[in-house]
């Protein structure tokens, strides 16, 4: 690992942006590690969540946004609940994902693909159409065997249907997506 040159590693714009979007001030973080201590997914992270917070605090944008951790986060809110400085850590994780997505820095493609599939299902039908979602996800990732073992069980139990649960107001939902995209561009 090359040495980090602190005099130019601090990206002030990045720090400000995270702060604005998350409404959290990472200068308050004193690296106690409480967030990581309780994080259930930490074992799968490349950076434990306290280090992610540290990267934000010290303005190390690329490392933060290209991390896998921000995608693996299960949004369980344990970190937020436990932070002694009342930092909404899970929200910061969310915001980092938002930023990484916008900047095309997604490190976990399958998770991102799953979310995209999920949201397109919502956009299309107003509610989630689980089979359609799976099909779309498999199409995006090529992961043919994903949960293939579960489908027969779920079908037998009547938990999956072949028909989407579309709603009358689906147009309204699509408009939400449309206006949201306009708003963000």
């Amino acid at each position, binding site marked *: *690992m*090359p*040495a*980090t*040159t*602190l*005099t130019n590693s*601090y990206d002030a714009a990045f720090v400000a942006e995270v702060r604005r979007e998350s409404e959290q*001030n990472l*200068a*308050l973080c*004193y*690296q106690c590690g409480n967030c990581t201590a309780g994080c259930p997914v930490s074992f799968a992270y490349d950076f434990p969540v306290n*280090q992610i917070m*540290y*990267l934000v605090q*010290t303005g190390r944008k690329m490392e933060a946004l290209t991390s896998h951790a921000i995608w693996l986060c299960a949004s369980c809110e344990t970190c937020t609940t436990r932070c002694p400085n009342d930092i909404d850590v899970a929200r910061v994780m969310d915001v980092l994902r938002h930023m990484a997505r916008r900047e095309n820095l997604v490190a976990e493609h399958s998770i991102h693909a799953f979310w995209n599939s999920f949201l397109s299902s919502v956009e299309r039908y107003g509610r989630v159409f689980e089979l359609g979602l799976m099909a779309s996800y498999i199409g995006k990732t090529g992961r043919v065997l994903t949960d293939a073992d579960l489908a027969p069980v779920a079908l037998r139990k009547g938990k999956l249907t072949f028909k989407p649960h579309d709603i009358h107001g689906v147009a309204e939902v699509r408009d939400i997506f449309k206006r949201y995209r306009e708003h963000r561009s």
Partner: protein
Amino acid sequence: MNIGVFVCHCGSNIAGTVDTVAVAKAALAYPEVVFATDTMYACSEPGQAGIIEAVQKYELDGVVVASCTPRMHEATFRRTVERAGLNRYMFEMANIREHVSWIGKDKDANTNKAAELVHIAVEKLRRNTELTAGEFTINKRVMVIGGGVAGIQAALDCADGGLEVVLVEREPSIGGKMSKLDKTFPTVDCSSCILGPRMVDIAQNPNITLYTLSEVESVDGFVGNFDVKVRRKAAYVDWTLCTGCGECAAKCPSKKTPDRFNEFIGKTTAINIPFPQAIPKKASINAAACLMLTKGKCGACVKACPAGAIQFKQEDEIVTEQVGAVIVATGYDLFDFTQYGEYGGGRYPDVITSMQYERLLSASGPTEGHIKRPSDGKEPKDIVFIQCVGSRDKSIGRPYCSGFCCMYTAKQTILTKDHLPESQSYVFYMDIRSPGKGYDEFIRRAMEEYGARYIRGRVSAIQPKNGRYLIKGVNTLMGDQVEIEADLVVLAVGAEAAKGAPQLAEKLRISYDTYGFYMEGHPKLKPVETNTAGIYLAGSCQGPKDIPSSVAQGGAAASKVLGLFSKDKLASDPQVSSVSLQRCIGCAKCQSVCPFGAIEMTQFRGMTKASVIATVCQGCGNCTSACPQGAIQLSHFTDNQILAEVHALCPY
């Protein structure tokens, strides 16, 4: 003699590894022991009541308590037996906690050992005699050595309490380290604004005699009556004449004199007043730099001085002061970082100490409060602070934490931002120690509001690079190596014992620790006392301390002295030597070894005999060991007693 033995459990402190019941039982077998018991907490109210009850019930003439070290509770139990109606010296302690239960794990061995320690205490007690303390008058004057903030506080409090005070300071001015500081944590108020008025109070208080440029030469005597010789070093200026006008310094051609007060940043003149607020505000000549004193030609100051105060022929003077107590407040000095090669070993002009940085920050400093690099006078932009330089480093024999450098580093980053809003401070730290009131909040403020970037980790090297410095180190929070290019590096050099502290301790007969800091009487219960009666400690001479703690100790030491002096006479320890006239052959060997001059040779029926001045004798027993006749015996440490102890342990 009826002896009672009390074996203390001290909760589980003793009972955990010593069978106290068995010890008490064993004690019953020792001669003259008529009563023995174990007790939960001997020193507690019920514990003491139990002793008193037993004394009365069993008509005891002497008591042995087997418990903690006598340093802890000997005085307590002496009072207890006195309340029970016994002479307070008919008491002995067996130390079965510090010397047994706390250092051994084998319960059988411990129990056996404890019983034997009780045995020797019993044997000693059997040969004790009732003693009555004499009285002697005390000289209610106090000397304070060291005029830093702790000494100033102690001196003022003593003077306010009506005592005559002699304040001895080795520098030309009082004020100590604090007078060099710019602003002080955690309030960031100006150091000289709060210290200055107190220094003026010292000068103006009629009860205080101030000797600066002075050091203690020797100390004789004992509590209540010390004779202290003070060497007043030559200033080459008659201070009774000097008005502090400063004309001399303005004219002095020797302008390249190293400036001690400004931590050798910048230069001064051979004759100078160290800083504008100096107390006393008197000029003195640095003999090594004065052209007249080194080369015999100049004398510009003589011409300049309107008061005719310059005296090249002045010599050191010794004055003797009689005082009843001494407060030592000699403070600390700073670690010499040049032994750290990785920080440049002193070769880089812009790698400076924290105290030098204080002088750069100070409006009365060499740069008038402008932060400028010593090398080129440029304003720095990136400034790196390195904490724990010369502290917490076993490899250089300094394993201790200097206590205040975390705090002053945070302060310096805050002041840096105030002075140079465009600057960026970086702090390398191992961990932050800020346990005072409002202290951690202060550190957080430096980080959160002033944007100081704290990097947890050490610096491996400082290397010059294009007129700046490349600082290489580690960030242990991320586990990566980091580099910073900076204009200035400030080292939070740790505190070490004041120069000459051990030598002074030897004069005062007080103890110091491995690092030269003075030993308090008890780490918890006697924080400002020493083990030498009448000598007290204040401030960072006892160990690194910030200003609030130093001031608190100054006040505490003063109140101890005032308490000591609240009596007109002091009780002397009656455990002193006395001479058997029959045995003494008048050889005067005892007199020659007595460190306190407590032995006089007198005439008795035409024969020369030794005689002990009881109030002067300090009970060392040197005389007893020296006497070829066994004629002079230190009571309660007589030859017979000690041999009886030996016999108790070695019965063959």
